[in-house]
């Protein structure tokens, strides 16, 4: 199939990538760019593991055609830690609260949380649950994920006050 060059800004770095009209964003990120933190759990938009942030909003990269993303800014899980490699408060909170087991849902879960907290910095438990309702985790039973998100919100709020 005919390829076309598109520009994507992924984790603040510009990439020029040849894609076919049917290439999915998840495959382009994982295979053509070669950063594999974005996971493919179902390929049908049901599990949320492939979530990335596009211009700040969470999108399912397995349902997104790469060719429609020309010029967009994408953040994957690899783009969340700061320049010096320090973990983002959400990442730290997931670690501290035992919200990670097999880790396969974790990148999507953390990025969905990022979008949630950007929009609603002080979510109550119901808002947290609604925020991550589209991300399946089969290991943790979700309790520690909800706790981690609540604690991350507090951590970010405290940091911003300083």
């Amino acid at each position: 199939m005919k390829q076309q060059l598109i520009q994507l800004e992924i984790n603040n770095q510009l990439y020029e990538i040849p894609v076919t009209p049917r290439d999915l964003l998840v495959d382009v990120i994982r295979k053509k760019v070669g950063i594999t933190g974005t996971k493919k759990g179902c390929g049908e938009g049901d599990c949320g593991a492939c979530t990335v942030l596009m211009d700040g909003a969470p999108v399912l990269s397995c349902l997104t055609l790469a060719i429609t993303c020309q010029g967009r800014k994408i953040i994957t899980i690899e783009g969340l830690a700061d320049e010096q490699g320090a973990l983002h408060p959400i990442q730290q909170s997931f670690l501290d609260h035992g919200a990670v087991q097999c880790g396969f849902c974790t990148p999507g879960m953390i990025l969905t949380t990022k979008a949630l907290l950007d929009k609603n910095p002080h979510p109550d438990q119901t808002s947290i649950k609604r925020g991550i309702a589209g991300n399946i985790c089969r290991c943790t039973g979700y309790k520690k994920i909800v706790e981690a998100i609540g604690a991350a919100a507090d951590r970010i709020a405290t940091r911003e006050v300083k």
Partner: protein
Amino acid sequence: MEGKKFSQVGRSVTRIDGPAKVKGEAIYTDDMVMARMAHGKIKRSTYAHAFIKNIDYSKALALPGVLAVITGEDAPNKWGIVPQTANEVTLAVDKVRFHGEGVAAVAAIDEETAEEALDLIEVEYEPLPVLLDPFESMKRAGEILIHENEPDNVLHQGEQLFGNPDQAFAGCKYVLEKKFYTSYVNHAFLEPHSSLAHYDPQNGQLQLWSSNQVPHYLHRQLSIVMDMPMNKIRVILPAVGGGFGGKGEASSSDFCAALLSRKTGRPVRVTYDRNEVFVTNKGRHPCHMKMKIGLDQNGYIQAVDFDNTLDGGAYAGWGMVVMFYTTSMIHLPYKVPNARARVRRVYTNKPTCGAMRGLGGVQPRYAMECLLDELAEMMGVSAYELKMKNAVESGYRSVSNLHVPHTEYKKCLQTVVENSGYLEKHGKQPFGKGIGLAGGYYISGTAYTLYLSYKPHTTVLIRVDTEGGVTVHCAAADIGQGCNTVMAQMAAEVLGVNYEDVHVVSGDTELGTFDLGSFASRVTYASGVAIKEAARQINDKLFEVAAGMLSCRAEQLEVRDRRFYSVFEPKKNIEWEKVVDVYTNTVGTLTGIGHFSPPRLKGIDLTRGERVQGANIGHSPTFGFSAQAIEVDVDVETGKVRVTKVTEAGDCGQAVNPMSVEGQVEGSIMFTLGQALYEEMHLDEDGRMMNACLHHYKVPTVMELPEMDTTIVDSYDPTAPFGVKESGEGPVQPTIPAIANAVYDAIGVRFTELPITPEKVLKALKEKQGK
């Protein structure tokens, strides 16, 4: 080191693979890239039962970019995790037995080409009658056989007799018998199977990276299918995205990748789509059960009679083992002096069933805990009283010779009843609200290997030197449950260092020492024994050197906080590194090696002293226990059952990493809540799966998360390393019956078929109104 005073064990610590996972840097099999790597795809059967008349792949082979095509004839050797019943092949030979079974596989330069090639493979089938119900399958065995050498369409059947149940039932005051059915469910681990094989034609070595939880058993199966000695094969687990038993045997992706790699001379990867995860299944066996329990006038269980027909699907897999686990699991956690079990595992033209978290326990536990709930009602006492009265105690030996060295099961029951307010709530809430109580237990490892062998089940090698510090080698599989962290904690405990100082090399059959794998909740206990022994040997050697450096006697030293101390004169102490430095400078690298062999208890009927078929299955060095009180709201308008609160108390012995134990418990409960209320794979009449995706196969999301109150009860098994027991499968057991008992409390309807869907609830409510 004996006793409960620990510094590294018993601490909630972050998992050692955690940082890589939150950064997206953990490498799973499908993340790997190798030079010249080709991509494999599997062509799947469009019939559930048919002879293969012909496969023509000439057009596929001619497609540019296609490197190789294989069919069943390329690897006809049969594999199976239970060697006595091994009957699976990599790709179907002559006949397909379920819809979606692999019939051919392609390797191509990219996935698109491989997929295109699959469409060019022409398979000619001669359809056969499709048997989807185990009873129909047995009935029509004279007319149609799924396997030629299995005359009744039955893999195996067994009868176990302990004591004299008939006589015991005759003397019972309260007897209840009911039928129960558990549904056809899948693990739905988040990472689909993925296998990457690299065969090197020059040295004849095969390396396989796989998303798997039993590298050793996979290693054995590869040797059989590939006709290669095990010492020419290396199995490596990258990060594994969950298993829950579903990666507890080999997968066709492993063999296809390996065969295609050998054929092309290139590395080949096969990653399944979600649809393929469902259609190759290996999930929990649907069980058609009949259970009868008899109590004497005081409420003591006198006898249990259990009949179980397991719907096994197309191949053997773990089937025979699962079947005998369902019989073993009626002997605990209550004292059952007389028991009979009649069980059979039947072939049907469905994707095969296999091992799934808490295998063999979940089904009989559902029946038993529901029956006890109703028997309590018949007696006019609380289910709590009845369960406490019959609960096992430390040192108990069942009539089937299961030995329970230590248990805090009664404490679990007490704790949940107190914490949930069960006695104040049960039977006293408005219509639609209910609370249910159930208990359960699980093994902490097995007594026997799946193939006849006397070798230790686990070996741990600890290496200490100035370069690597402490490295623990063991081919155990961390599939997300966190065993690498727990092994580091246990090694650090004995060596007197911090868990962060310990490197763990696991999931590798070459660099790791022998281990059977992650199943049967065995790893913490088994590796714990081996780690203790290996670390003791290291300490013995270092104590000698430290003693010389401190001018005191080796047996008067202890090691803690990375220092050796004289127990009599603690100011005589020296840093751990300095002693290691002296040892390695004078002798070289230090090693210690420890093994674990479980006690080989025989499955006998203690009343007669006779061996009982299949009763070796179920023995374990120790057992974990869990009790749960679950509260539900039943919406009488919509029929929807909502779990509002789960109160749990578990006996996992000494928790090595309490945060990790909580994660296992909470995960177990939500995992099983799905089976109770939502999950079921549906096949159409031709055997095609109708909901082979996470959209239509409903696993719990966070919206179903109830309030959860879990307690790790104070427990320490003095016979276990560090006092440990299992924690990842015991808490699976009580969830379904606790929910069913709660629904019964809420609306007075006993659901004996899973899942308890809104449709079933509405139908039952309507019938109840009609009465």
